[in-house]
């Protein structure tokens, strides 16, 4: 909790926000915990930067960066002590908003009758510290998928409605990043409660933090810091601008939705199918992949049953299982399903791309399949052959005039 001394030290939180040091970061975590939030942020564990509950700001990955390549992730020590210069880790915030395993309800059989009971566990109130712009976009996409339609997913909606988002603009993209191509970074888009830009230069290690919501502004007012100075603001903006200029990957300059729809029969799918292990890692690390399956279980008495919801993957053979067998039995069709959904049909279903350019699918693919390389190959193929799917089926009369 803030003390009187903290409050007195704080400058008024104008639109320009504050500049604060590591002590401000420590105070931020304390304020959040004091307000009852479960604070989730990046920390070093098991040779990676993971998202976990933070007891204090000391657990942030100060001085750790990462080296990323297709199929490769390594921690690297940084001399500058930066906390957020480490690109996207293996997890995303969907682990907390859309958990991998949820009990939905239970059913009991008594005297031949079924009695259903909803699961009433109240959702935790999360503060997410260090949401990268690509992940901020991913949360906005999952909002649309899981709460934007006729049916709302109550599990997601409950966790999301209480979540406080503290974004950190990206100044250190990895070699696998391409958020610029997907218009999802490195500057933070809308939707945050607070946003920070980390600066380390001759003037020291500091964070320029601004509010983005009423609650964010209230928290900002409790933090120690000084009014944002022009040098820090300029250094922060320059860092973000420079980040845009050194993305490790790019998507081809094309309408990806059209490209996907027009290349469903491209031979490249056979090529990638020869490499893809259909392990589903790309779907697990993807911050927008939302697919789930259900599992119905009974206990040993046979009179108590539970419905669980688990993450699922379109790479799994059972995913498209019907009574006659799976619709997509080949790995070719399953990779195609994932990529064409992510980059193409997502627009039809939910009004945007399903990809934010975070690069996780490239890093965590055990054989290093690179979605940008695959898109480029499809683009090249479409350019050299024309897209056969554009030509109408001669057997199908099309349209019958205006409705």
């Amino acid at each position, binding site marked *: 909790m803030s003390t009187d001394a903290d409050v007195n030290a704080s400058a008024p939180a104008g639109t320009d926000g504050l500049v604060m040091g590591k002590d401000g970061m420590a105070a931020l975590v304390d304020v959040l915990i004091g307000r009852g939030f479960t604070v989730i942020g990046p920390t070093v564990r098991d040779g990676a930067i993971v998202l976990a509950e933070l007891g204090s700001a000391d657990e942030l990955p100060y001085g750790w960066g990462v080296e990323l390549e297709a199929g490769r992730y390594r921690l690297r020590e940084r001399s500058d002590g930066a906390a957020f210069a480490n690109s996207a880790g293996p997890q995303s915030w969907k682990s907390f908003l859309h958990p991998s395993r949820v009990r939905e309800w239970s059913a009991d059989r008594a005297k031949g009758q079924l009695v259903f009971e909803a699961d009433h566990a109240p959702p935790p109130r999360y503060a997410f510290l260090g949401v990268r712009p690509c992940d901020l976009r991913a949360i906005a996409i999952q909002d649309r998928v899981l709460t934007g339609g006729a049916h709302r997913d109550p599990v997601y909606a409950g966790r999301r409605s209480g979540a406080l988002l503290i974004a950190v603009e990206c100044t250190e993209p990895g070699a696998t990043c391409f958020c610029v191509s997907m218009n999802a970074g490195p500057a933070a888009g809308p939707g945050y409660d607070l946003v920070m830009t980390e600066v380390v230069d001759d003037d020291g290690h500091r964070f320029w933090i601004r509010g983005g919501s009423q609650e964010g502004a209230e928290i900002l007012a409790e933090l120690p810091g000084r009014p944002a100075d022009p040098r820090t603001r300029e250094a922060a903006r320059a860092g973000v601008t420079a980040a845009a200029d050194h993305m490790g990957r790019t998507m081809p300059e094309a309408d990806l939705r059209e490209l996907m729809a027009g290349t469903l029969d491209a031979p490249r799918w056979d090529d990638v199918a020869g490499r893809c292990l259909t392990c589903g890692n790309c779907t697990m690390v993807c911050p927008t992949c939302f697919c789930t399956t*259900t599992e*119905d279980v009974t206990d040993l008495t046979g009179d108590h049953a539970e419905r669980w919801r688990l993450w*699922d993957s379109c790479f799994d053979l059972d*995913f498209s299982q019907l009574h006659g067998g799976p*619709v997509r039995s080949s790995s070719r069709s399953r990779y195609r399903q994932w990529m064409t959904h992510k980059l193409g049909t997502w627009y039809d279903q939910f009004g945007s791309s399903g990809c934010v350019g975070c690069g996780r699918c490239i890093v965590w693919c055990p054989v290093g399949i690179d979605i940008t390389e695959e898109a480029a190959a499809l683009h090249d193929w479409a350019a050299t052959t024309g897209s056969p799917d554009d030509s109408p089926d001669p057997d199908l009369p099309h349209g019958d005039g205006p409705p």
Partner: protein
Amino acid sequence: MTTVAPPLPYRVADTWAETADTWSIELVPVGEQLPSFAPGQFAMIYAFGVGEIPVSASGLRGRHGALVHTVRAVGAVSTALCRLRQGDTVGLSGPYGTGWDLRAAVGHDVLVIAGGIGLAPLRPVVHEVLDRPADYGSLTVLVGTRTPADMVYRDEIESWRGPARVEVTVDRPGPAWRGAVGVVTSLLDRLDLRPERTCALVCGPEVMIRHTARDLLVRGLVARRVQVSLERNMRCATGHCGHCQLGPLLLCRDGPVVSYDRVAPLLLVREL
């Protein structure tokens, strides 16, 4: 709301065999009742401890708000549903999906084409058209099944003859079979279709739907007036689980009934 609403308990009021492996189940609410189903919409039916499957309603006007569902035993859940007895309870949620667009059929001849148990979601359409003959032109029902013994609603189909034209064909006839033999599209040859005034509703295996829809177009129907009910794995029925995708469509949300002009190119892509 931050909790997932469980299904509502429905009691099995009656159950009867349609064929050796297919049963109809009449379900009445134990307490709270689901909103009413439109023809072609589906329910998720939960068999205690086994799981849940999507099943289109095959009858909407049973006694005391009863719904009828017809289930073929092909997997664990459907087998459990076929083993239900009177008085058992299941969980039911719904109604889900688009249903048949019967407003589009008003003033038109209605051509119902079913393959096997695909007649189940079309049965409420037949009831509707028979109930309101003034709203529709002629009614034709074409049914294809594997063998005569696999035919569902056998007695009821006979009762439709007269107000409706009914044709049945089988793939493999027995010695007693006197009717047509062959795929259901062969029955189209016998009809005097008025393609510009006909609305066709098609349900069956996907391959049957594909061939039937294309034959209808060859006979002059426009794709927009051919409605098809498609099937995919459905886990949530609310557009959140991703299993039921057919290219751009989430079939639980955008289907299961879709007009053929939307899906014709998609059905031509293998393993989409």
